[in-house]
């Protein structure tokens, strides 16, 4: 399929990109890795008059630690996340999660910022961001603002990002030492979105859970934070009974859309199953 005609812009700085967005107005779309936008354009579901390619803005790439915070440029590719030594050491959940995204070819082009900004509940990064308690730097004509991942996702393809803003950076507090992590994803085949997936960060104190953070992928119109399950687990030991209850509480908030992956019952059950398995795996990795 062939997209409708569009003009292509390739600014070299965030400031230029923001200026372009202002000039071009609502007919402009930001192009990150393009692996969601371009297929929609080829099917002519999306027909933006202008594409503003962020791919040549060097300041939007890279992974670093500043104080107790990991900072990731929004145009950092999934492949770069996968090969980051810093992330492997400090935030391995992100590395594990990125490895479940699409396939190697897509991961060379797809970016963390694009994945988040698209606002698709089937994307993997939103749940990872929820579990990691990340914040996002949104840059616009009036400067920067920082918003929490929790609360950023408003609805299907809808986020707090304003039309004249760009998501420029992801900030992740370095998880407490000894935290366990896991991203469990059920998908039909390589490259598919999740039938259900759960991201978990888990801190243990002795035999009991000190803190659990749980994000659910593709379980509703946005990524879901499993608050009740998180609250329930605090102070509990991880055993069959607590896993079952946490899974039940996660399933309770699910409102999945039926599609070729399965009906709502199956997807809800799989959300519970992935939650259970993610908690188990995170528990096995956690050090008290």
């Amino acid at each position, binding site marked *: *399929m*062939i997209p409708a*005609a569009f003009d292509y812009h390739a600014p070299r700085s965030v400031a230029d990109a923001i200026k372009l967005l202002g000039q071009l107005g609502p007919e402009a779309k930001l192009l990150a890795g393009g692996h969601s936008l371009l297929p929609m354009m080829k099917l002519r579901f999306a027909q933006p008059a202008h594409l503003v390619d962020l791919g040549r803005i060097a300041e939007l790439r890279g992974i670093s630690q500043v104080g107790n915070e990991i900072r990731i440029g929004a145009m950092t590719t999934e492949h770069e996340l996968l090969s980051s030594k810093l992330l492997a050491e400090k935030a391995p959940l992100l590395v594990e999660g990125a490895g479940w995204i699409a396939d190697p070819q897509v991961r060379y082009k797809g970016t963390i910022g694009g994945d988040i900004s698209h606002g698709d509940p089937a994307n993997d990064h939103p749940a990872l961001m929820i579990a990691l308690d990340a914040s996002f730097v949104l840059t616009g004509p009036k400067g920067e603002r920082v918003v929490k991942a929790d609360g950023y996702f408003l609805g299907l393809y809808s986020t707090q990002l304003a039309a004249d803003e760009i998501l420029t950076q992801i900030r992740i507090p370095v998880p407490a030492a000894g935290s366990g992590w896991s991203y469990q994803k059920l998908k039909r*085949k*390589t*490259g598919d979105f999740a039938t259900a997936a759960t991201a978990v960060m888990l801190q243990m104190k002795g035999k009991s859970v000190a803190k659990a953070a749980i994000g659910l992928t593709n379980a509703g119109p946005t990524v879901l934070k499993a608050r009740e399950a998180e609250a329930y687990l605090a102070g509990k030991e991880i055993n069959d009974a607590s896993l079952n209850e946490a899974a039940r509480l996660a399933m309770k908030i699910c409102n999945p859309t039926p599609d070729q*992956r399965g009906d709502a019952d*199956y997807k809800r*059950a799989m959300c519970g*199953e992935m939650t259970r398995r993610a908690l188990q795996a995170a528990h096995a990795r956690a050090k008290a």
Partner: protein
Amino acid sequence: MSQTAELKEREQKLQGMGTSLLRKEDARFIRGQGSYVADIKMPGMLFGAIVRSPYAHARIKGIDKAKALACPGVVAVLTAADLKPVKLDWMPTVGGDVQAVLADQKVHFQYQDVAMVLATDRAAAYDGVALVEVDYEELPAIVDPKKALLKDAPVLREDIVDKKDLTHGPRTHPNHIFTWEAGDKAAADAAFKNAPITVREEILNPRVHPCPLETCGCVASFNKATGYLTLYVTTQIPHLFRTVLAMLSGIAESKIRVVGGDIGGGFGNKVPVYPGYVVATVASIVTGVPVKWIESRIDNISTTGFARDYHGVGELAADKDGRIKGLRFTALADHGAFNSHVSATKFPAGLFSICTGSYAIPNTYCRVDAVFTNKAPGGVAYRCSLRVTEAIYLIERMMDVLAQKVGVDKAEIRRRNFVKAEQFPYTTGFGWTLDSGNYHAALDKVLKAVDYEGLRREQAAKRADPKSPTLMGIGISTFTEIVGAGPTKVCDILGVGLFDSCEIRVHPTGGVIARLGTMTQGQGHSTTYAQIIATELGLPASDIVVEEGDTDKAPYGAGTWGSRSTPVSGAATAVAARKIKDKAKKIAAHLLEVAEGDLEWEIDRFKVKGNPSQFKTMKELCLVSHTGNLPAGMEQGLNAVAYYDPPNLTFPFGAYLCVVDIDKFTGEVKVRRFYALDDCGTRINPMIIDGQVHGGLTEAFAVAMGQQLPFDESGNHLGNSLMDYFLPTAVETPAWETDHTVTPCPHHPLGAKGVAESPHVGGIPCFSNAVIDAFAHLGVTHMDMPHSAYRVWQKCNALGLNKR
């Protein structure tokens, strides 16, 4: 050097039959130097893009081209009205029906071709497509074939509502195409009446699509000055395609050239003549410039040759030990909107009556009812000879169902019913003469290789453990295939017999060019045919060039489908080579001044019996044949052409075994082991055979585990892109273990039978049998494909297996 070593060295030099010669074609492909239709660029070429129907069933009230014609780059918009003057708005089908080239009055399936926009480049053509305004009045659609023959069902094909038959017997309903029967119904009914054990199961072969990596397309180039039409096209049947074009267009067949070029996979999807080819051809004739049309992936999956959609019912009658006494198989066949189902004329339901499989079954009856629905036409694609997958799926599933009812092991039920080695050639209840086989030996070899008893013990232990998170299933499939169509006395398409051909020219220095009527799509023909000639003529395979697909160069043949290349053209190759060898022998006798009877053949030369120092190598004879030093009256050259009409089809077989582990909580099926033993008779290139088996098993895995074309009640596609449609990658694909026995075909000059389709036909029931076997101890006798995690979980959930 010892004599044996010297002989061995000479033989190895040829790289003939039996050696795993690396594929000659791959040097090009792995360097990206293939030449596919989409690569062709011609001066002044226009691009065609098709306007497709958003509805499965609708009346077309009007088509407004004005906005599209005003679009920069758009040259013309063709609709059915434009094709009418040249009488190409409809075209006859091989199945005795007619098919709309561009929708006339009505659309009958979603994505049906409605108009073609011609433009100076591809982007402009698609801009034009978006601007063609079609006024539709939506009509109720038939999606479920079971509803097609209801009294108050909407009439789909108003254009043929008065036709009492479509060349395959009387029609009983406007949506009915044909009813086909074989065997002896009265005898079968009597067997069921008297049998102590009967089993019955409803078994679906869902609608799937082979989804070749390269979609369909063509470049049509009509030269107004010479009246000569050249069509570069993705076709598995270039010569038959040319014949069809001549019939459709009225252009003399001698002025039409069809070129197959490199084809990126076919699997039967590239046998039919699609509307896009016809419209592009008309467009080139009208405009006088070349016209290119290339499908998108969604176009390919939505509109071109699908496979299956056979809604079967299997019934077996047996004695108390499970020895089968009768078989009744029926199927409701969804042929889509037009009967463009490709098959040999006398076989409207293909070779479905091979459904007795590998078993000696008396009292057999089968019947197929074909109906129209609001879905794309087709049905016979996908790596099997015309409904063989459907037939073998039914019998291999029913053997398991019978074993469970009788209470015997699934390997044992097969042993009790196999045709025995000493019974070959064996004529089945439906009249097929199975050429050769050794079924017991094949199954026993597999069972021993995998330690079948050990696997069953492990399974029993798992079943006894309520805490086991997984279910274990063991599937067996002992299939017999029917390939190599086929004998002209029973097999023709449009009156053209399904023989095939090979022309061999030997050059003075021993180089050889061979041209065949088949068409490779990745099967490795350049290598396999060269190896046959290498062994037959004693000339090295490396110097033998194989050409196919250009109708101006190659002799006539029926193309490549139904695993017919080796059984038919491979035979033609051997016959042509032997004609050359016979002539070479005469020359050798003349040169050595002996009688022909005094010569014997040894690898690459004729030598005088009892006087080994007196010999003439084939290479020497190649040069001499181009001189005047020949027997009196002999013409120069070493050339031959052979047209081979096979006396029978061939019947490859195999024994497959699959072990699966099923996650009770997610429904995911993991293939732990798959052991495939194939017997395709004489093996020409073991590496290529292994590759074919790997490919066929991977496609079988795809069909059994994930492929299906889903529709909603209005006939809208719900999964026609690779987002949903399952094409397994290296990640999903299990590791294959292959094995073989060799039972040569008695009627093929080389003893070869063909292999490409066996793993698909035999693999699909093996996967299904494994998945269902995992639930067999819970009384489950059947589950329909595809065995996706979702569907398997539903079974686990219904049985309460996923309770924590």
